[in-house]
């Protein structure tokens, strides 16, 4: 047996492929990217027995080898190219036994490519509940591959599968050879072109040769020369892509149905789907359906805001304690300051969001596992379509309430590029959790804490209003982009609707770990890096005023001492730092919105992550480190006066202008970075930055001018 043999899991979406991957690899998983594309590459190590282990690759789910999305294209690129780093020694095709004929389409295609295969029949329990009985031995004889029944959700049959993988790997045939019998006679479909390609490229397999013709331009491993040669052959022999694909698919289904006639017994009645149909009547009801969806949304928001605050407070306190400990136990120096105020503060800014992301994705995983999420897509598709979005945009938009980074990664299952792009562009307008600290403090400042309509609190209503504002802005922007963006491509929603079932907690747990990891790695490194840059900008200045800060402040304020003196020095330093100079530099631009240079500094520092805004204000108004609690900062902001008029600076007009600004402005490096990654370039993140900043500026200007 080869050391570190590679096996690939291939199957339709919803075939239980990922559950099987989790069963085989447990926590030994690594999530990376396929080179050059933004498709998640999940690999893991599976122990077959005490001495042997293999590498498992979970390939994206697909219905056939004719790709329609970048995810599906990856499958094609890998299994048609023996030189690819991920090319498997053995493929395990995972199929849903309860809808075997559709699932076998992909199987026969991969089989015809000549790859060594094992067929894993998953969900036999559901099949038998539906009265379908499958004779595995008959199937194995006709298909001429090892067939093994598994239950990827409970782990049943996994050991059998491992044993068969083990024996199959020991007697591997040479891959990519022409089979003695294929399911479809490719030679008969397009004889000349198949021969032409086999000759030119030294391909032995007919079906692979035909795929060179079908996918020609899209196969990543072919040179431009090869591609133009294929195009010439296609011209010469009048290759009709659609017609041949249709003929092939129909021929495959004919074969599959013949095979299944012998191997599978199906009941005539269809009692089984009646329960789901009845449940769907309620869950898709024009009234009850939406009512239930809203209730679930409410529950999710409640969880993100109320329940997550406990672990978040703990993380906050923990980071503060570590920083305090380091500051008191280490001698005061620039390096310690870099470590505590730069690095650890940055890491804290990342860790603080983990509880909300974990809770949100727990809900989303449960909804997806149970089959309800597809119904949400059905409920929302008609409405979303009007705004240039897709039913599948609902998940990213909801996720955006916690954090735009995992939300934008969740757009990948939207097939249509235009709809996916619009979803990516508008998701950051949803008010994420990093905006909460800003919202709370400014609302507390200008909105009275009193009841309205008996049960509601005015401050609560204001907060809700801001969330609604974000949502409305997202939807209207989507509609605008639908009109403006000129991207072709047909929008469709041809989607399998899974049956209802109990969620598997192991899968829920692994999804949470995966999302949190992605957030920490993707957003984390940027937030930490920017925090350090900002620390430099706030700690150094162009003149020698920084070094003389202590003497100057002491001279000017001879009566101050202790904490008050230190706070004053901190504030003086920030004013004279590069950040301070930047604040003064942009003051003319932000003056129309009602902001002074101090707020300008906070706008700059909060560009890494919005929540830094409050911390910067507390430094700049020299409330200092004691100002962990909101009331102190609030009192201080209230006392701040406009030097020109002598009146309070933080008027309702200014506060609302700032609130609206933060509701719309991009102000998040991590989001820009993730959009860069998902769209493969700087074009869209830059457009998004300009659009959102422009929208924020204009709206804040209007609000300030109206309320002033």
């Amino acid at each position, binding site marked *: 047996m080869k050391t570190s043999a590679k096996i690939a899991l291939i199957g339709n979406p919803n075939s239980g492929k990922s559950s099987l991957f989790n069963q085989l690899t447990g926590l030994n998983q690594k999530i990376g990217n396929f080179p050059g594309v933004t498709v998640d590459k999940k690999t893991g190590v599976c122990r077959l027995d005490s001495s042997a282990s293999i590498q498992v690759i979970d390939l994206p789910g697909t*219905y056939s080898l004719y790709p329609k999305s970048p995810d599906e294209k990856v499958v094609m690129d890998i299994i048609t190219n023996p030189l690819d780093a991920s090319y498997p020694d053995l493929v395990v095709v995972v199929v849903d036994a309860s*809808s075997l004929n559709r699932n076998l389409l992909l199987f026969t295609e991969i089989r015809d490519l000549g790859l060594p295969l094992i067929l894993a029949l998953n969900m036999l329990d559901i099949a038998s509940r539906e009265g379908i009985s499958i004779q595995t031995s008959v199937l194995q004889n006709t298909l001429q591959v090892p067939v093994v029944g598994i239950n990827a959700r409970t782990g049943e049959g996994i050991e059998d599968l491992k044993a068969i993988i083990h024996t199959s790997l020991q007697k591997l045939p040479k891959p990519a050879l022409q089979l003695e019998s294929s399911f479809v006679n490719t030679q008969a479909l397009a004889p000349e072109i198949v021969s032409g390609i086999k000759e030119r490229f030294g391909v032995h397999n007919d079906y692979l040769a035909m795929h060179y013709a079908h996918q020609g331009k899209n196969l990543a491993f072919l040179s431009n020369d090869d591609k133009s040669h294929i195009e010439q052959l296609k011209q010469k022999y009048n290759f009709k892509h659609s017609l041949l694909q249709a003929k092939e698919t129909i021929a495959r289904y004919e074969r599959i149905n013949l095979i299944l006639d012998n191997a599978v017994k199906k009941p005539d009645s269809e009692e089984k789907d009646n329960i789901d149909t009845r449940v769907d009547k309620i869950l898709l009801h024009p009234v009850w359906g939406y009512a239930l969806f809203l209730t679930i949304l409410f529950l999710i928001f409640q969880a993100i805001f109320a329940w997550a605050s406990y672990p978040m407070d703990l993380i906050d306190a923990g980071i503060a304690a570590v920083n305090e400990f380091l500051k008191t136990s280490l001698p005061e120096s620039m390096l310690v300051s870099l470590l505590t105020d730069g690095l650890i503060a940055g890491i804290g800014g990342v860790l603080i969001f983990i509880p909300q992301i974990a809770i949100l994705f727990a809900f989303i995983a449960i909804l997806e596992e149970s089959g309800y999420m597809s119904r949400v897509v059905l409920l929302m598709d008609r409405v979303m379509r009007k705004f240039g979005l897709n039913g599948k945009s609902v998940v990213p938009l909801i996720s955006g309430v916690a954090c735009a980074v995992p939300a934008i990664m969740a757009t990948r299952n939207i097939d249509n590029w235009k709809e996916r792009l619009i979803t990516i562009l508008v998701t950051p307008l949803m008010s994420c959790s990093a905006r909460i600290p800003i919202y709370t403090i400014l609302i507390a400042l200008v909105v009275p804490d009193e009841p309205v309509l008996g049960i509601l609190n005015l401050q609560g209503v204001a907060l809700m209003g801001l969330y609604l504002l974000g949502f409305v802005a997202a939807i209207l922007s989507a509609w605008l982009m639908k009109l403006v963006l000129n991207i072709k491509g047909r929008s469709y929603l041809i*989607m399998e609707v899974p049956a209802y079932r109990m969620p598997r907690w192991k899968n829920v747990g692994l999804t949470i770990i995966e999302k949190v990891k992605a957030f920490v790695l993707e957003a984390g490194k940027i937030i930490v890096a920017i925090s350090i840059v900002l620390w430099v900008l706030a700690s150094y200045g162009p003149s020698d005023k920084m070094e003389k800060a202590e003497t100057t402040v002491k001279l000017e304020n001879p009566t101050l001492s202790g904490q008050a003196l230190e706070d004053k020095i901190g504030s003086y330093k920030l004013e004279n730092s590069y950040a301070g100079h930047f604040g003064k530099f942009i003051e003319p631009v932000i003056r129309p919105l009602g902001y002074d240079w101090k707020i300008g500094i906070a706008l700059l520092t909060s560009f890494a992550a919005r929540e830094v805004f409050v911390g910067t204000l507390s430094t700049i108004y020299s409330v200092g480190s004691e100002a962990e609690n909101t009331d102190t900062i609030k009192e201080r902001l209230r006392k701040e006066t406009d030097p020109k008029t002598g009146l309070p600076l933080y008027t309702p007009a200014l506060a609302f202008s700032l609130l609206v600004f933060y509701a719309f402005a991009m102000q998040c490096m991590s989001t820009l970075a993730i959009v860069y990654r998902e769209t493969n370039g700087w074009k869209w993140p830059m457009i998004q930055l300009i659009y959102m900043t422009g929208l924020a500026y204009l709206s804040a200007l209007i609000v300030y001018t109206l309320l002033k």
Partner: protein
Amino acid sequence: MFNPVKSIADLKIGEKATICCFKDEEMSLKLLEMGCLPGTEIKMSCKAPFGDPVCIRVSGYALSLRKEEAATIMIQQ
């Protein structure tokens, strides 16, 4: 010769029909792949509010599609 005038979009919940042919080539490739073959029996199983998208039983599983997509699949009853 039978002249198809009805499509899947015309079916009510619970009604059955047999797929006859497609009106749209590009869409038909995707639908064939999903097991919607001429001669296959389907059943309208559910509809989203206001009847769009719809959900059909075909080849032993549930498939959802928008009303305009369903309208490209012609049927005989």
